């Protein structure tokens, strides 16, 4: 099933929109990124038809990867149907003609904004994360020259201090998304604004994780089967959220839930953020229920 069946391949543009010279530059950068896990590789980001800040990095990375045999799924906030996901998927349908899908297992490349799918990824799949601010130390130190030096010397103490200050003030670490990690025991990295709920999925994942920041002009990577450790302290180990509610549609107790406000009185429901995962569970439940209905 093609998720964007109505969009025609536009032959005015090179396959993937980027010219071959730009693709080569990006490809060299990505190979170095994989060789230096978690390190931000500068690249000559181009203006794209979508604005900076709206996923141009992820789009450029995808454009340099994608081939006619690929199957593309695009999600934003975990859903295939949010406006930005649709816009990006239509863009790729237009400049590649590649088959698109909503199915996580069927996809070979998954550009994403702010979520990792609930369905476990497999070897050979590539996640491409949209990154707004690539530098984990940026809020501590505005200067790029300084943060480059800090990474070179693995001088990350200031970030630990910053997190511990939250514990001193609030009793908890106040960072709930874009939670900093250490990759392969060396580089501190921002995993993009995924909720910390998704951080454990990065650790030892069989898929390749690529990160693109178009406006900041950086790409970085976490190879498959690589150690990714969220920052924490012995007396305050890293924790993820769980809900006491379950998904209103499929009953899941394992997935990240979105809160939906239904009326003026503030009536709330919780539903899976990952719409495809939720849809699959609902379909399986309907299938299981069917023989009884027919009885």
């Amino acid at each position, binding site marked *: 099933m093609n998720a964007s069946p109505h969009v025609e391949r536009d032959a005015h543009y090179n396959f993937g929109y980027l010219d071959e010279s730009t*693709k*080569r530059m990006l490809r060299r950068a990505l*190979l*170095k990124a*994989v060789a230096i896990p978690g390190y931000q590789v500068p690249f000559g980001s181009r203006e794209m038809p979508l604005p900076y800040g709206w996923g141009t990095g992820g789009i450029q990375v995808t454009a340099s990867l994608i081939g006619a045999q690929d199957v593309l799924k695009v999600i934003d906030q975990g859903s295939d149907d949010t406006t930005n996901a649709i816009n990006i998927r239509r863009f790729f349908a237009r400049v590649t003609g590649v088959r698109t899908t909503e199915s996580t297992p069927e996809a070979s490349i998954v550009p994403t904004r702010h979520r990792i799918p609930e369905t476990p990824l497999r070897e050979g799949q590539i996640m491409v994360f949209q990154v707004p601010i690539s530098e984990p130390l940026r809020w501590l130190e505005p200067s790029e020259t300084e943060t480059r030096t800090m990474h070179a010397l693995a001088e990350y103490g200031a970030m630990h201090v910053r997190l511990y200050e939250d514990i001193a003030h609030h009793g908890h670490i106040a960072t709930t998304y874009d939670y900093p990690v250490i990759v392969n025991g*060396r580089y501190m990295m921002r995993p993009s604004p995924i909720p910390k709920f998704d951080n454990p999925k990065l650790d030892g994942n069989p898929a390749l994780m690529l990160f693109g920041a178009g406006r900041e002009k950086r790409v970085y990577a976490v*190879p*498959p*089967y690589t150690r990714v450790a969220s920052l924490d302290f012995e007396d305050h180990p890293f924790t993820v959220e769980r809900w006491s509610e379950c998904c209103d549609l499929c009953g899941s107790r394992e997935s990240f839930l979105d809160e939906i406000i239904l009326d003026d009185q503030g009536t709330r429901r919780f539903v899976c953020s990952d719409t495809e995962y939720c849809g699959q569970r609902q379909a399986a439940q309907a299938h299981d229920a069917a023989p009884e209905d027919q009885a």
Partner: protein
Amino acid sequence: MEPTLTLDPAKASGPAAAGALLSGFDDPVADAQAVFRAALHALSHPGRVTPLAVRSGVPRGLSPAMTAVLLTLADGDAPLWLPSGVGADMARFLRFHCGCRIVARPDMATFAAVPAGFEPPALADCNPGEPAYPDRSATLIIEVASLQEGEPLRLTGPGIRDTQELRVSGLPAGFLAQWQANHRCFPLGVDVLLTSGRQLCGLPRTCRMEA
């Protein structure tokens, strides 16, 4: 997806008239993409042997895989080093199709390509990058006799679930010691792509290697 390689013998370096230039990729856009994905897969899964399935002219002295990698990655912004003594046709082919500068010393190069029959430069003689910019480092492409037979090497590290065995013959004596020294320099260091005929194997600097 595993890319598969089939080589078209009609395009191999045959009795081309001196001065006639061989063609590059049959389908430059699709072939470069396929080779890039193979190289990305190779560095993401160190030690695994990936076949390449693209067609191109192959100058005398180069293997199909090494030609494919250079056509895909080298260009005017990525200077190339070749050992002295490679044929003029090979240099001409690469200058024409890649538009790359060919530089005199390995430490000046983004890619250092070592075809069969030539000695690779010491890893320490290639550009390891700078502390603030370890990406500004070389990638060494070495043609080896075989990626199926030879000394077994035990690889661990990013990209490898537990361990990965690699059998390779044709690496210079002392390569293991050089590689271990290169690995200790992390994040500085060079990365290696091994080619053999139509096959590709990746060794990123993160890879730990033991005999």
